[in-house]
């Protein structure tokens, strides 16, 4: 008589194990209430984590967060800036006419000296007084530039339009990025852009875009801020992307550049070139400026346009953007500018700018670098401003 037969209530261990694994497999393969509940919990958890991870305002640190908080959308920021300028111009002596108006972003603002070197240099070259109006501002995009130039009266000389890959290709998407709500895809154009385009006689833009920076690489450096906010450890610290004077960490630059290239570059045979959509963005921006130029001519103002490329750290171009991509970009801008008979200047070589002159990838603020760049700009402008003078 076996032992099992004498103890009928005791299940054999091997049978019990087989039954447990069968139950486990049945649980795994059949629909059930616990599976449904768990599925919903996991989905909602991931969704919540995603929203939290995409929350720029909480994670960007005081720099960008402050700007977003005080400007619920980019449009109001643009309006505030342009209306302030409009009020300023309204008070200006209407007899003043400007020989040179410069618009651009922070890269241009910082590298062109405003302490008289530019004016003095031009006056020495031309032998007459030169009136320069500096309208460069941090984060200014090409729509803002066009609006600001349109607000200025008495343009008789040169409008120097600062350009850069960032201004052409990411500023408008950035405008939407600043007030997206957890989503990645957003239309590229806001009410301000639409109104401006209408004012300049252009149709509203019909663009949609994906956040231009690779998410993981862009947000990874912000993870410490995420943990700070989750653990109530106090306010977020300054993000390395937005802090001034602190070198960007190499891996963050490489990550951001990889995301940038993913959107704006096209790789073939180991070479990366400018994508068609990037060319379209450049053309769209220059079309707007063309309309501005026509508008000014109709107003009887004899302004000549010239494009000035913002300096970029040569190491960044070489190692992250890719020299081929940058050459392709510059060729594209040059071709589109020559179609409109606008000079296009890139003065980094003339100004002998090196990696050491830059405190981050697109800003250099050293006095020596600014002197060299401003001198190179004076020598370029000399020909153009005097040509304008001869035309009068």
């Amino acid at each position, binding site marked *: 008589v076996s032992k099992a037969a004498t103890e009928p209530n005791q299940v054999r261990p091997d049978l019990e194990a087989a039954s447990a694994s069968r139950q486990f497999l049945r*649980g795994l393969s059949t629909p059930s209430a616990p599976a449904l509940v768990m599925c919903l919990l*996991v989905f909602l958890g991931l969704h919540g984590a*995603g929203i939290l991870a995409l929350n720029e305002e909480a994670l960007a640190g005081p720099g960008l967060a402050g700007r977003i908080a005080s400007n619920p959308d980019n449009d109001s920021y643009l309006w505030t800036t342009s209306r302030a300028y409009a009020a300023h111009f309204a008070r200006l002596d209407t007899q003043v006419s400007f020989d040179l108006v410069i618009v651009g972003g922070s890269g241009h603002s910082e590298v062109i000296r405003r302490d008289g070197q530019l004016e003095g240099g031009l006056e020495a070259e031309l032998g007459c007084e030169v009136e320069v109006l500096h309208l460069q501002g941090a984060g200014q995009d090409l729509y803002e530039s066009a609006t600001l130039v349109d607000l200025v009266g008495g343009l008789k000389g040169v409008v120097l339009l600062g350009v850069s890959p960032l201004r052409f290709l990411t500023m408008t998407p950035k405008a939407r990025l600043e007030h997206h709500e957890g989503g990645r895809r957003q239309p590229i154009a806001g009410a301000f852009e639409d109104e401006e385009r209408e004012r300049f006689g252009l149709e509203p833009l019909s663009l*949609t875009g994906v956040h231009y920076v690779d998410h993981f690489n862009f947000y990874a450096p912000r993870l410490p801020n995420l943990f700070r906010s989750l653990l109530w450890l106090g306010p977020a610290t300054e993000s390395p992307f937005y802090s001034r004077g602190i070198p960007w960490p190499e891996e963050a630059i490489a990550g951001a550049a990889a995301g940038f290239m993913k959107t704006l570059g096209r790789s073939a045979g180991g070479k990366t070139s400018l994508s068609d*959509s990037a060319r379209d*963005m450049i053309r769209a921006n220059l079309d707007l400026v063309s309309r501005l130029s026509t508008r000014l001519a109709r107003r009887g103002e004899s302004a000549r346009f010239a494009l000035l490329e913002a300096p970029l750290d040569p190491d960044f171009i070489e190692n992250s953007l890719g020299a081929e991509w940058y050459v392709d970009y510059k060729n594209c801008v040059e071709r589109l500018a020559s179609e409109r008979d606008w000079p296009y200047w890139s003065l980094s070589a003339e100004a002998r700018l090196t990696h050491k002159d830059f405190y981050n990838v697109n800003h250099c603020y050293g006095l020596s670098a600014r002197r060299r760049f401003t001198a190179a700009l004076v020598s370029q402008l000399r020909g153009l401003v005097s040509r304008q003078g001869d035309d009068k």
Partner: protein
Amino acid sequence: VKEGFPFVLGALLQGVFLGVLLFVAIVQLYVHGSGAQVFRYQGF
């Protein structure tokens, strides 16, 4: 029939798997929903 602990464990694991799958599927549909175009420009 009263289900045992192994069944519940299996069901929870199934839930985790399906939840992740659902999330990834929805994100992919959302991001690449309209032809995975990074920028679409339709002219003036």
